């Protein structure tokens, strides 16, 4: 996930120009650009300059524990080997990783392409499958990386509002898909944290295949491993049996490897081959490849991480509920909470108490805040701050 990129687009008004206040652009645009040039996004800077040692950072949907022991050991082993070699000359290579991913789903390496995070998959999807006359369709609000690229390229973007429960509106998305180049489904959806049930995903895909067979469908399952709702299933088997459908996954969330920059796409060979033309050469690093193979071979750790997150998530939902703030039905490692006041106000107040929470998510930034789930200890500390700030 690229916070910097997104902040950059938003603050410059490149993206969602209709919902960004001119004042925000005027006041932050130049400064945001300066900060971004220095490798930081605006909100990180504004918050972190106030943060001191021991801050609770629950702003970027990261896994506070990092990778599991097996993946960490693989990373250390990788450091003992050949950091000077390109990924083809290192074991496990990026191809070994593609094979490991494919095996997990009964597919072939040709069904897989890697990304520098799943962000590269989303950006390449927009480059490969949208054009000046082939729109990108996305929910609103949703994850913006594909949207940012489409807008920059001058390709049209059709946005579909969330429904009353802050879920993706599958029927409205299906209608908007007609003649589009790419439909982007973030499931679970960031920032609203809700999931679209597998039956709705299948119905949506079937409808788009019927009404607009040339349209590609990208299902971003970055938060899949945190879902606990049994109505959800991964769309990977669906993608493997359906033309023009592909799923993006990341190692940045439950796998705890945001700092290693690795994601992948999986789908039918024809779809993946077209997408893979855009793949950057050697886009995954040796240590990421090694840690990813080890973590894919350690599914038990993922179960533990899901359970750990659910406990902290349930606790945090309860805290907000006690404060009269309703959260959407989170199936992720973050909450989208109706705090009844501007997110910026809440964020700045939390920052004063050494707690960093999520940025603005227009068009809901006047009422809703995104809060990532840290460890249970971090959430207990954050809860005390939330009680003070929201009292």
């Amino acid at each position, binding site marked *: *996930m*690229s*916070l*910097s*990129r997104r902040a950059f687009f938003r603050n410059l008004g*490149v993206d969602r120009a209709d919902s960004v206040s001119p004042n925000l652009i005027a006041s932050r645009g130049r400064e945001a650009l300066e900060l*971004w*040039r*220095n*490798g*930081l*996004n605006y909100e990180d800077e504004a918050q972190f300059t106030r943060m001191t040692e021991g801050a609770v950072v629950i702003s*970027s949907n*990261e896994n*506070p*524990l*990092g*990778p599991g*022991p097996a*993946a*960490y050991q693989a*990373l250390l082993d990788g*450091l003992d080997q*050949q*950091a*000077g*070699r*390109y*990924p*083809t*000359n290192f*074991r496990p*290579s*990026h*191809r070994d990783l593609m094979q490991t991913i494919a095996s997990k789903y009964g597919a072939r390496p040709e069904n897989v392409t890697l990304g*520098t*995070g799943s*962000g*590269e998959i989303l950006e390449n999807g927009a*480059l*490969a499958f949208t054009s000046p006359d082939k729109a990108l369709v996305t929910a609103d609000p949703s994850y913006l990386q594909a949207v940012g690229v489409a807008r*920059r390229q001058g390709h049209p973007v059709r946005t579909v509002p969330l429904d009353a429960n802050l879920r993706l509106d599958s029927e409205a998305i299906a209608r908007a898909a007609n003649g589009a180049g790419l439909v982007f489904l973030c499931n679970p959806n960031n920032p609203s944290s809700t999931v679209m049930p597998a039956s709705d995903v299948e119905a949506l895909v079937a409808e788009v295949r019927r009404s607009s067979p040339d349209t590609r469908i990208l299902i971003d399952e970055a938060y899949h491993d945190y879902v606990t709702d049994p109505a959800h299933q991964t769309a990977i088997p669906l993608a493997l049996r359906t033309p023009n459908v592909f799923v993006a996954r990341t190692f940045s969330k439950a796998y*705890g*490897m*945001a*700092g*290693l*920059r690795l994601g992948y796409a999986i789908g039918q060979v*024809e779809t993946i*081959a*077209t997408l893979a*033309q*855009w793949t*950057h*050469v*050697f*886009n*995954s*690093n040796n*240590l990421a490849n090694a840690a990813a193979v080890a973590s894919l071979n350690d599914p038990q750790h993922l179960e533990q991480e899901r359970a750990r997150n659910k406990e902290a998530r349930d606790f945090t939902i309860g805290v907000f509920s006690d404060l009269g703030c309703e959260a959407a039905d989170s199936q992720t490692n973050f909450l989208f909470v109706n705090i009844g006041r501007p997110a910026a106000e809440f964020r700045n107040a939390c920052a004063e108490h050494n707690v960093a929470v999520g940025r603005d998510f227009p068009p809901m930034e006047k009422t809703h805040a995104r809060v990532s789930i840290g460890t249970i200890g971090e959430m207990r500390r954050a809860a005390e701050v939330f009680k003070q700030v929201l009292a």
Partner: protein
Amino acid sequence: MSFSRRAFVKTLGVGGAAALSGAYIPRAYDLPSFWTPTLLAQEGPLLLHNNENPLGPGDRVLNAIREHIAPDGAPVGRYPFQLMRNLVGAIAQRFEVQPGNVIVGTGSTQVLRTAVMRYTSSSKPLVTATPTYEECTQYAQLLGHAVVEIGLNDRLMLDLDEMAEAAKGAGMVFLNNPNNPTATVYPADEINGCIDKILTASPDTRILVDEAYHDYVTDPRHETQIPHAVQNNRILAARTFSKAHGMAGLRTGYGIAHEDMIGELREFHSGNTVNTPGVIAGSISILDVQRLNEESARNTEARQYTIDWFKNAGFEATDSQTNFIFVKTGMNAVEFRDGNRENGVMVGRNFPPYEEEWARISIGTLEQMEQATESFAKVLRVNATAAA
């Protein structure tokens, strides 16, 4: 030194539809893995095919990564937003420029791609050489942008006159200096002359100078374009940590340019693409000039040994200023490569139009090169002892 002139000019106009039609463009990493079962069965094949630093980034860098992620890897769960500032700051410090003059990427190739996307189009061609580092050419073709390829001159160097001529009205000129695969470098006065000519004759054209191998240059007449780039908002210098810094596996590179140009590139540059180990390693390695000098000296010795070996055996190489040599074996590159592979030595791929007689060989350690020349002798059927 004079080689048979095979310069040619080719204009490639790939339609914009190519990208959407699924037209397949082969890429370097699409090659079957070099680690065939036969090779894996052998102890330590010599990897002289990817211009890597055989020693890696060194313990100081590796220990810094270990320290950062200890004791349990938790910091790896975080995005490197804050650390990135350290890397950009260290690069700026090293070259005495401002952080706003620096852009970082997944290897320098990401910077190259961004520049191609930003400055070329279907009507504003990329002007590049052939053979040279292919990334810009391939990405422009993928985008459906126009490409003009200029053959090398008879010294196997970039044909600066032809490139400057072709630059008129172009979107961007790509100058790989030193040039991969031919290993040659231009003295500062000549490359500056070419750049000045382009700046004057074609006021909208940008110039991307890829200095991936800069740290291996020993010709004192060579100079980096970085000071030029920060002054002039039409010049971008690209650098990588994959070569002399020994970090090919950590995928980190950067570009340096005028602040205005960096701003233009930012609009087309994916953020958050550099990994935490790469960011930490780069921040330390960039300021360790002594280690870089030692690595260059080590490479120079092994390079000279290899060039001398070929010379004694009757084969001429270009004047290498890199960590690889381009040598006229007189043998088809495929035959030379396959023969060496049988002996457990990997050498470089084909570089048309020179693949009938020329090979690119990366420079490993001196010991590795002594071992490799035994294989070269067998494949080229020369007396190894006589050559040595």
